[in-house]
């Protein structure tokens, strides 16, 4: 007898849980339906805004978002263990600049950077996409916290690459108060990106294969 009762309660419980799961799925599906277009739009706007800021001063009419050059490790770009993306920027169907999506080795984790480089091998601008640096010390790399990141604007490697470093290391870039590991990591990352762009320029100016 008691086995029968137990069986019914197992079947009943399973059915009820299934109903609950269906209800839960319904909630999630309805929310997704209501929000997904707006979310995609937000992501696109955010990405557009970021591209626009790192391409300051460049005249362009098109960014090839969908076919970035994917550079798989091992490579010499910053973030050598990760896959890195390079976006081509066009004006009248000619490549006028690239946006490198690279990772600097920060004090407490990777710092995701967007580095714009034009055909003269000059940095157009650099922006930090995400990081986990100490608030109040390392987060001056954010444009909203300080102007520091703008010190890369219109900088090129130059003949004497030794001065592409922090001033305290004998270079041309100031650090900001309270931190040196974070700014050093960003300076090195931008330098390595420029070196890569110079070395592989011939491949980079080619159209994506396909």
């Amino acid at each position, binding site marked *: 007898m008691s086995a029968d009762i137990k069986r019914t309660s197992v079947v009943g*419980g399973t059915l*009820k849980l299934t109903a*609950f799961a269906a209800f839960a799925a319904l909630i*999630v599906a309805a929310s997704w339906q209501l*929000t997904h277009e*707006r*979310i995609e739009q937000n*992501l696109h706007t955010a990405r557009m805004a970021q591209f626009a800021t790192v391409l300051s001063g460049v005249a362009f009419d098109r960014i090839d978002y969908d076919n970035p050059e994917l550079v798989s490790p091992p490579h010499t770009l910053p973030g050598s263990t990760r896959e890195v993306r390079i976006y081509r920027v066009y004006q009248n169907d000619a490549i006028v600049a690239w946006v490198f999506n690279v990772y600097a080795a920060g004090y407490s984790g990777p710092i995701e950077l967007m580095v714009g480089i034009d055909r003269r091998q000059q940095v157009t601008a650099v922006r930090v996409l995400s990081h986990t640096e100490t608030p*109040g010390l390392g987060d001056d790399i954010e444009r909203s916290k300080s102007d520091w990141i703008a010190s890369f604007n219109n900088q090129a490697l130059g003949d004497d690459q030794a001065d592409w470093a922090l001033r305290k290391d004998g270079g041309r870039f100031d650090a900001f108060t309270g931190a040196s590991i974070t700014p050093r990591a960003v300076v090195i990352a931008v330098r390595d990106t420029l070196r890569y762009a110079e070395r592989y320029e011939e491949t980079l100016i080619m159209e994506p294969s396909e």
Partner: protein
Amino acid sequence: MKSIIRDGLWQNNPGIVQLLGLCPLLAISNTAVNALGLAIATLFVLTFSNLTVSLARRGLQSEIRIPAYVLIIASLVTAIELFFHAFAPELHARLGIFLPLIVTNCAIIARAEAFASRQPPLRAVADGIAHGLGFAWVLMLIGVLREAIGSGRVFADLGTLIPGAGNAGLQFADGGLLIALLPPGAFFALALVLILRNLIVARQSATAAEPAHES
């Protein structure tokens, strides 16, 4: 009904009495706006999970109660995360992992099990709102404290939560004590609030005890 509200806001406050949900409380209270965003999300999840659990309470035998709670809470959290992503994308980015982690806030499952599973819907909703607000004011108080001490202003970046509101906030000092924004500051701020609560409770019980002595 009155006791439900007093219970959630003060007597049995999830943040400073039950000390539940401390992980988001400590991690996201670094600015007032972050705190407000997380408070709204938690309030929403708590209220609707209480309502759903209460409506389904007769059908939920003890064997399937916990998995059912988990299903409800997880789907509500996913829903609110989607809405934050759609309508407050910058705040969504800053709350990061702590928005989906509302699912692990034991204050929510505690209310479902301890209250909503044995109460009618209206009382369950009142309880959800009361405890949500109770969690919210503690989170906000700690957020305002830490932001004020840490950076000399409050409600910076309000525009990320309420479109059109300015992002400047109320600045009243230039810079501040950095430690308040760092993780240790969260523990100090929580300790201050707990001290305050204990002082108030001690005073209340002292005044309540006095007439008894005289008689």
